[in-house]
């Protein structure tokens, strides 16, 4: 009875995903590819040629940009992974999974741009840390001429990425650990005389890694193609490839769009090759690791390394928190000059003019975030319900489809997608921005919702069916209420992802749609940290408020349902 209906639902969902998510990406890639090989009629380029590639390779600083991209991308991902694993190993016994996840929320919720703006001020030679220890400890009456931000090696960018990626890895690791019998492994390993750290590396990590492989690739792809954070923290001349591509796309010399498109394609190539190289390194580590494990060394030597990783993560978190606090202080300051640890004078002026400035941006951000999240959650529920009705596990290709938008670099298809949308008569506006953002929000919602959805006790649904409830009623009256908490969490994650989107909003909104993120990034290249502070604070607070609502609402609605008070699902 349910089979035909289930098939219909699945077909609808598949059509929506194919037409709404996959097609735009392919169309965007197609337009970018055409331009990369010389076809962009708008600027009179109508012949296939390799000129744009030649121009790209000849652009000053191209080689440095590419090297810098690879270095910052790989270094930050590898380091973030190592730190997160180390921290999880050290902290696993000390606090529960739930407490850990809650501690991480502020960092996950804070958009990259806001965090980067705060960190840039925190670690600058004239920044907050320098101000706190000057001149009494350092003797600096004027800031020293050292490159702590926008440094040539991209260390500040790697640092910024770490603050953002370590919490993400931790959350993923905590979720994966709940699927492993960690405690039994630990006691078995220790009974056999292995040190605690060694059990983590030799026993638990090999089982953990396959569970977090896809998120690792997502982080690697992101780190290789990040734009907003790299603008604020990265080297400026030349910048990493993704920033260079963005600049070339927007340069006064419009013929640069051709090499920019070539570079955008190359950016995808870098990500694909990067993931392939990472995959190869995984194999190598597995082979070498197996030899190492077979040798059976029991040592406790891993312990100090894990402790150091744990300590480093705590320092990262503290600096991240300090960065956010500095944004709030700036938004309330009037004059704050070096080397004062706190502003000399305070003012609410930056907050007092919502009308022309942050009011509109806040409004747009909420509307776009709300619409994008609603769409994505609805689609995700439809997808999962379709799977339920078909009683089929998810195919590999379907999983890949979900991850596709997260693995393809945004810059590679956004310009092309813009041209496609314009040709279809969808000019820059709310609709295209919401659509483009949904490409990136939907995967996260889907990832967040899948596991709790599948973990739902099937007996409840069967009982409802036995009592005569049809498929729709089973969904609305049984599944959705029980899954309210994970649904809200997925929605909060989706909302946070939407708030943080920079390139899709910039390219698809024709710059007309100002959100907190686009404004904050623009203002970060201005002279007024106080106004930037207001935008960044709002940008950080908004997703956090969504998370709080996601926690509070189910608790309130289910206040008379003791069985649903915990982490249902």
């Amino acid at each position, binding site marked *: 009875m349910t089979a035909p209906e289930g098939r219909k639902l699945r077909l609808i969902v598949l059509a929506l995903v194919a037409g709404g998510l996959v097609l735009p990406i392919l169309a965007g890639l197609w337009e970018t590819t055409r331009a990369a090989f010389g076809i962009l009629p708008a600027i009179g380029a109508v012949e296939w040629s390799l000129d744009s590639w030649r121009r790209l390779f000849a652009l000053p600083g191209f080689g440095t940009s590419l090297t810098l991209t690879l270095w910052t991308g790989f270094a930050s991902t590898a380091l973030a992974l190592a730190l997160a694993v180390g921290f999880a190993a050290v902290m696993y016994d000390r606090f529960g999974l739930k407490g850990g996840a809650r501690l991480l929320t502020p960092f996950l919720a804070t958009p990259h741009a806001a965090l980067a703006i705060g960190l840039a001020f925190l670690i600058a030679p004239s920044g907050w840390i320098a101000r706190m220890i000057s001149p009494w400890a350092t003797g600096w009456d004027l800031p020293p001429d050292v490159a702590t931000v926008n440094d040539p090696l991209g260390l500040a960018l790697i640092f910024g990425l770490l603050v953002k990626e370590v919490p993400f890895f931790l959350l993923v690791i905590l979720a994966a650990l709940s699927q492993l019998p960690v405690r039994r492994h630990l006691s078995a390993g220790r009974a056999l005389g292995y040190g605690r750290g060694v059990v983590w590396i030799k026993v638990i990590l090999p089982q953990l890694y396959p569970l977090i492989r896809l998120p690792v690739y997502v982080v690697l792809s992101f780190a290789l193609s990040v734009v907003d954070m790299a603008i604020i923290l990265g080297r400026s001349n030349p910048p990493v490839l993704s920033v260079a591509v963005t600049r070339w796309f927007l*340069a006064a010399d419009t013929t640069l769009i051709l090499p920019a498109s070539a570079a955008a394609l190359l950016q995808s190539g870098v990500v694909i090759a990067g993931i392939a190289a990472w995959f190869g390194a995984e194999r190598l580590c597995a082979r070498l690791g197996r030899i190492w494990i077979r040798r059976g060394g029991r040592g406790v030597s891993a312990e100090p390394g894990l402790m150091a990783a744990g300590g480093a993560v705590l320092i990262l978190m503290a600096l991240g928190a300090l960065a956010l606090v500095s944004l709030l202080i700036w938004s309330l300051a009037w004059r704050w000059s070096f080397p004062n640890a706190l502003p000399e004078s305070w003012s609410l002026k930056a907050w007092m003019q919502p009308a022309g400035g942050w009011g509109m941006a806040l409004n747009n951000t909420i509307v776009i975030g709300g619409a994008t999240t609603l769409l994505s959650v609805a689609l995700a529920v439809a997808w999962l319900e379709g799977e339920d009705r078909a009683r089929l596990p998810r195919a590999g290709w379907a999983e890949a489809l979900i991850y596709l938008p997260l693995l393809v670099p945004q810059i590679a298809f956004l310009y092309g997608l813009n041209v496609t949308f314009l040709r279809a008569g969808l000019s820059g506006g709310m609709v295209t921005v919401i659509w483009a953002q949904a490409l990136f929000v939907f995967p996260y919602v889907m990832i967040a919702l899948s596991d709790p959805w599948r973990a739902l006790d099937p007996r409840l649904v069967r009982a409802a069916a036995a009592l005569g409830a049809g498929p729709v009623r089973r969904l609305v009256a049984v599944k959705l209420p029980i899954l309210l908490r994970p649904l809200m969490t997925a929605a909060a994650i989706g909302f946070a992802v939407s708030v943080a989107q920079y390139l899709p909003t910039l390219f698809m909104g024709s710059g007309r749609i100002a959100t907190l993120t686009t404004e904050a990034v623009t203002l970060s290249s*201005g002279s007024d940290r106080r106004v930037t502070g207001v935008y960044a604070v709002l940008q950080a607070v908004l997703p956090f408020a969504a998370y709080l609502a996601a926690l509070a609402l189910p608790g309130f609605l289910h206040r008379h349902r003791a069985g649903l008070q915990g982490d249902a699902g």
Partner: protein
Amino acid sequence: MRLPLLAALATGIALPALANSWDDTVAAAKGQTVYWNAWGGDERTNDFIAWASGQLEAEYGITIQQVKLTDTAEAVTRVIAEKAAGQTEGGSVDMIWINGANFLSMKQQGLLLGPFLSDLPNAKYLDLSEGSAAVVDFTIATEGYESPWRLAKFVLTYDSARVAEPPKSMAALLDWSTASPGRFTHPAVSNFMGATFLKQALIELTPDASVLQGEATDEAFETATAPLWAWYDELRPTLWREGSTFPENESILQQMLNDGEVDFAMAFDPAAAAAAVERGLLPETVRSYAPEGGSIGNISFVAIPFNAANKEGAMVVANFLLDPATQAKAQDITVLGSYSVLDPAKLDDAARAAFAALPSSPALPTNEELGRTLNEPHPSWMTRIAEEWARRYTE
């Protein structure tokens, strides 16, 4: 009357100078929202545009929606993307704050509406004679495809509490920076302000500055810029971070002056420092001045893309910006502090009195301190200098 007019506007055909065509434009503009694409890095300018929107709404029923750009080229790219998609009307960009290379690029590709300047009633306050600053943009004749709105002039800003005697020429600047390494820098040369700094140096150092008014041919470029690169090779190692990296734009440079990371900032607006003091963004001890041989100056314009959705509204906005009352408001140091583009000789007594009554500030340079205004070189020089600089100094 209305329909043919709209049709003419929609196809981008130049309008005949009909007696009542302006009234028709004003009537058609009523209720429109003009998307003005303007660099958004300066809060004063953003506030001024918001103020103008309020005035226009009250008087003409038009509102301005500022599209804040980090770089003017973003708007150019957008119009190109729209043209690529065959969108010849209802475009998303109604008006652009534009200058030099961007203007040249759009004009050459036929992306601009016009000529429209002579249709604006307030154009009568401008000096429209051939070669006047109001009709020449970086040596390119504007031919009515853009309308002036503010005057810009290169100045250096320093903190008088830290620097007693600022260098008055580019040669003296090299000596000063050699004596105080790491305390001077300029914005990245890919940025307008950074390129302007190099152009200012070029005009001072080149053997024959008149060559710069023509196109930069290979040969002319080589001879004219040789002293510039020799000077810069010496200056660069003395710069902040040894010239390995540069602030993105003048706003960041101003923030660095405020933070004490460097001792100089620069601006293309003589009142920028005074206004920043007013807003608590620079210490009260900063002063601005121009190099003693004079400094580069030019006028900023607004242009309307060929496919703008709200052309009539954009024209009314352009006209409003030329109103003597608007120009006096813009020159007010507490508002925008940008100097008027109007010809003083064409103003009536009331308008002149309004300009005379504007407030002053210690950080505001006097006319003597501002000195002579030097002509912008042909845009090809800026493009080539930026390219050559990137080739020489990008690792």
